[in-house]
């Protein structure tokens, strides 16, 4: 067949032959004394993970605005929002379904969800894989047997394992998200009942109402300066006519 190239062994002169043989003997002697391994001796040592490793997810309720974005975006339907005693909705993760795509973390506008380097969590059964909000706040109980961290180093000729006598940290400083200031706004004022539920649930005092007995009108207002964009009124509005909208700077 034309186009095929004949492979010819390179021509070695004597000095090249001595050099390559000496290198081979040297490597053999080195390996016989201190053998290299290509594998990581887990769990006594652990591979060093990159900072943006997609692992076990932690949750900070103080930053959560109950926007449901994580549960909407989850392609595996692993995230369910559950009502907490304080009337807010917080995520729960079923690790039996989670595919660790971390779309939830990417979509979290408050930065309440963050990644860790924890990836080796053991469960006794499938039900246990359902992780409640409380369990997401603190990392799971970890017994660390590893003493060393291992890194793969690729140089010109080969792939080496670089061992360090220090353990890799499991927690990463979360990159603060770009804050998008949102405020609650009524999109269909004519359909407002003036039930004042928004005023009742508002924690920042942004929603207010004034009843004017003389004219039988209720003046409703949402002060955009005070509104923190938490979304509680949006969720509670009985007519579902409040929306979180972006603040134009």
């Amino acid at each position, binding site marked *: 067949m034309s186009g095929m190239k004949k492979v010819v062994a390179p021509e070695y002169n004597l000095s090249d032959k001595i050099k390559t043989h000496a290198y081979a003997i040297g490597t053999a002697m080195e390996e016989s004394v201190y053998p290299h391994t290509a594998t990581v001796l887990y769990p006594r040592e652990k591979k060093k993970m990159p900072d943006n490793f997609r692992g076990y997810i932690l949750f900070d309720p103080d930053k959560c605005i109950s926007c449901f974005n994580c549960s909407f975006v989850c392609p595996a339907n692993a995230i369910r929002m559950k009502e907490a005693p304080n009337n807010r909705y917080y995520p729960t993760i079923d690790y039996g379904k989670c595919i660790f795509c971390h779309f939830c973390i990417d979509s979290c506008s408050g930065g309440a969800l963050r990644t860790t380097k924890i990836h080796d969590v053991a469960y006794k059964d499938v039900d246990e894989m359902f992780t409640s909000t409380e369990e997401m706040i603190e990392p799971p109980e970890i017994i660390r047997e590893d003493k060393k961290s291992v890194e793969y180093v690729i140089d010109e000729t080969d792939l080496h394992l670089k061992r360090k006598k220090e353990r890799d940290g499991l927690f990463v400083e979360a990159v603060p998200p770009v804050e998008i200031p949102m405020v609650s706004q009524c999109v269909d004022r004519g*359909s407002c009942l003036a039930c004042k539920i928004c005023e009742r649930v508002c924690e920042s005092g942004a929603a207010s109402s004034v009843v004017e007995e003389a004219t039988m009108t209720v003046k409703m207002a949402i002060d955009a300066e005070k509104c923190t964009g938490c979304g509680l009124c949006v969720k509670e509005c009985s007519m579902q006519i409040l929306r979180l909208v972006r603040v134009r700077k």
Partner: protein
Amino acid sequence: MKMAAETKVGEAEWEVKIPEKKLKDRLFFENLKAMVIDTQLCSRCLTCVSICPGGLLVNEEDVVDFPDFEDKCLDCGACVRVCPRYDYKPKSGLGDYIEFTAGQSKRFKGQDGAMGTEFIFSAMDMGLIDRGIFVDRDEQWRTSVFHVRGKEQLEKLPLGGTKYVFADILPELKKAVTFTKKGVGVVGTPCMVSGVRKLQEEFPIFKEKVKLVVGLFCTENYHYAEVSKYLIGKGVDFSKLIKTDIIKGKFVATMTDKEVKFKVAKLDDILPSGCSRCTDFTAVESDVSVGSVGSAAGFSTTVVRTETGKEVWDYIKKMGNAEVGEGKVEELDFLINHKKEREKNIQL
């Protein structure tokens, strides 16, 4: 999710007009209770229950009630704004219509021509609405309300429709209105139709989202507990029941093995007070009214009243979804007058 619209800071104030209280210094619910519920005017259309942000509900006795309203009532006045009987202007007669006709659906089976179902699904096919509120009943005649978004869902509701028992349609309509993208279609009794019209009058969201209102000819409905007890007493076995009808003043329940017949007038003892004060037989405020009376067996009398109703009816005819029959206006006179006589029961 929709992209949030951008907005300027500080333009979020609005006013809501609330109605005058007839009983000053009392909560709006107490007004409603005094004017409508305690005076036996309430038709149990549940318009108030659907709109109430607090805790208006139907209690065990099947009466509209608000347990611990002292604590939970938000006093917003929504209930009296929407109640069709708070400021009751009884409607009666045949009402305005564009076309008086009859139809028999070729696609669906029902008690008569199944035109209520046909109107909703044709409107869905037209793209006018994306969901309809349907009522189903179980073998014991208990009702439950469904949001139907496609024909295939209807196959799972084997019995279809309610028979002279109240159904909680409007609270589901409210939910549907917040979910829907295109619009909602609803089939209801005349009192519910009036309730929907009141909601549309007061709140633009209903005007925008409730696209098709099909009214049913209705003489009366019964509370489930009372009518089931009565019928069982008469020897009706719900599990064997095939159909029920009111023919020439007689209530006929056809079962697999026998037939139970008795005069409808005998049911007057359990006639709900709200129905005894209702004068609207044909649902005059609807887009389309359908019913059994006024057409041949197997057909539904169809009264097309509004432009929307006419559009859907024209679509049904164009697509050949229904056999067109003949409606006889004069056959309705007896029941229209029968209900008009109930005006004497109303003491405002």
